């Protein structure tokens, strides 16, 4: 058991010493992740974990990479991508130059999915995709663009359901048990570290995707992050969230219009 008081003190010291703020994350998930880190590394108590990471920066780095990594898939929720093609792409095509922010990109599967979609819609050449995450190890994997070959069956199905126009195998090269995404997809992608809980806006975008990240935040942090997206979108820019996420807790809720209610695609209107 992790007592609440002890947990909050731990997060406070992490914030004070290292500047990472998890105090507004949904507690149940963070506690689960901390606990599985403790189990895997045979750390008996939160107090011991605290002692270990406070005096050893390398240990802290290891800890932070382990507890902030999110899981992702190529073309997850295929109908979301289908809706992007139908409802968003034609409006994006009116811009001479398009900037997309994928916030919380983790190991990059969604980034490559978007690059494929933009290529098939003829927009990739004039698009820059900014892919950010809090987790450096995940970003490194995203840059390398490697995936396990065992995922390809699921990804190919998703790609087809998402309205893919070619053969999915056109986009990767298989080698042993891995696949490498087509290097030309990566030309217009910029990977960088960004912490949604603490960092500011860094550009203006026509489209922002942040899917299955807000579920890990409490209502107050969700609202702050939506405001950050609001400030980072151009007028009539688009925001895509995860299937179970909403603007319900966002102060800026009224500044967005629903483009696709089911697929959680919104447009900044005010």
């Amino acid at each position, binding site marked *: 058991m992790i007592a609440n008081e002890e947990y909050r003190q731990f997060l406070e010291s992490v914030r004070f010493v290292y500047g990472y703020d998890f105090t507004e994350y*949904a*507690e*149940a998930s963070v506690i689960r992740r901390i606990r599985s880190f403790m189990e895997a590394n045979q750390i008996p108590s939160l107090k011991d974990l605290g002692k270990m990471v406070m005096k050893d920066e390398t240990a802290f780095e290891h800890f932070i990479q382990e507890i902030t990594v999110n899981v992702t898939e190529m073309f997850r929720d295929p109908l979301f991508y289908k809706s992007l093609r139908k409802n968003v792409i034609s409006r994006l095509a009116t811009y001479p130059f398009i900037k997309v922010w994928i916030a919380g990109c983790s190991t990059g599967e969604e980034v490559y999915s978007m690059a494929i979609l933009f290529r098939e819609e003829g927009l990739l050449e004039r698009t820059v995709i900014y892919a950010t995450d809090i987790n450096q190890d995940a970003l490194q994997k995203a840059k390398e663009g490697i995936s396990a070959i065992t995922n390809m069956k699921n990804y190919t199905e998703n790609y087809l359901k998402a309205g893919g126009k070619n053969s999915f195998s056109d986009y990767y090269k298989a080698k042993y048990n891995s696949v490498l995404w087509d290097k030309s997809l990566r030309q217009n992608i910029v990977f960088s570290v960004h912490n949604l809980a603490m960092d500011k806006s860094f550009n203006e975008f026509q489209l922002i995707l942040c899917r299955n990240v807000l579920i890990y935040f409490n209502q107050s942090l969700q609202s702050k992050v939506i405001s950050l997206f609001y400030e980072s979108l151009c007028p009539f820019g688009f925001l895509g969230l*995860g299937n*179970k*996420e909403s603007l319900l807790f966002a102060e800026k809720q009224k500044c967005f219009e629903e483009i696709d209610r089911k697929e959680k695609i919104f447009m900044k209107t005010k």
Partner: protein
Amino acid sequence: MQLRNAYDAIVIGASAGGLYAMIEILRDLPAGFPLPIIVVQHRSKDERALLEEVLQQKSKIRIKQADEKELIEPGTVYFAPPDYHLLIEGDGSFSLSFDAPVNFSRPSIDVLFETAAEVYKEGLLGIILTGANKDGARGIQKISQAGGTTIAQLPETADYPAMPRAAINTGYVQHILTPVEIGEFLLIVEKRK
């Protein structure tokens, strides 16, 4: 061992064959049921809300899919959404996660049961039903260790007995009942004072 009948919440885990057992258990529950019932039923990730619709047609109690940050209310049966883990927060609300599958499952019964055990402690009743894997066994142990009450479906009555059997084998299942008996028992449970 006497089965207590006062709780704060009920959690149920079901996998293969669960639909029929769930119908048996929920069918007679009244709309004014005094507790929340929170369920992980393993389901296809492509199925969006069919399970809730089918069960609602056969029950009087309100049935819905749990929403992110939703406050947990009595008189409602909540199902974990397809392809997300369902967790209970200390303030009595739900949160969802897309963390890796646990026991090859997302949603995972263990994830729900373990977080529910921490929040509800001795006020929790945990029920494990039919299934072909061992998800929920660890969760049953956590519920029992936190002072809660645990029930497994009698394996002989389960379409797939592996899951209740795995839970029973932990030594932390306190009562073994048929789905009909579980349904009858739920009719007499009360809110804990």
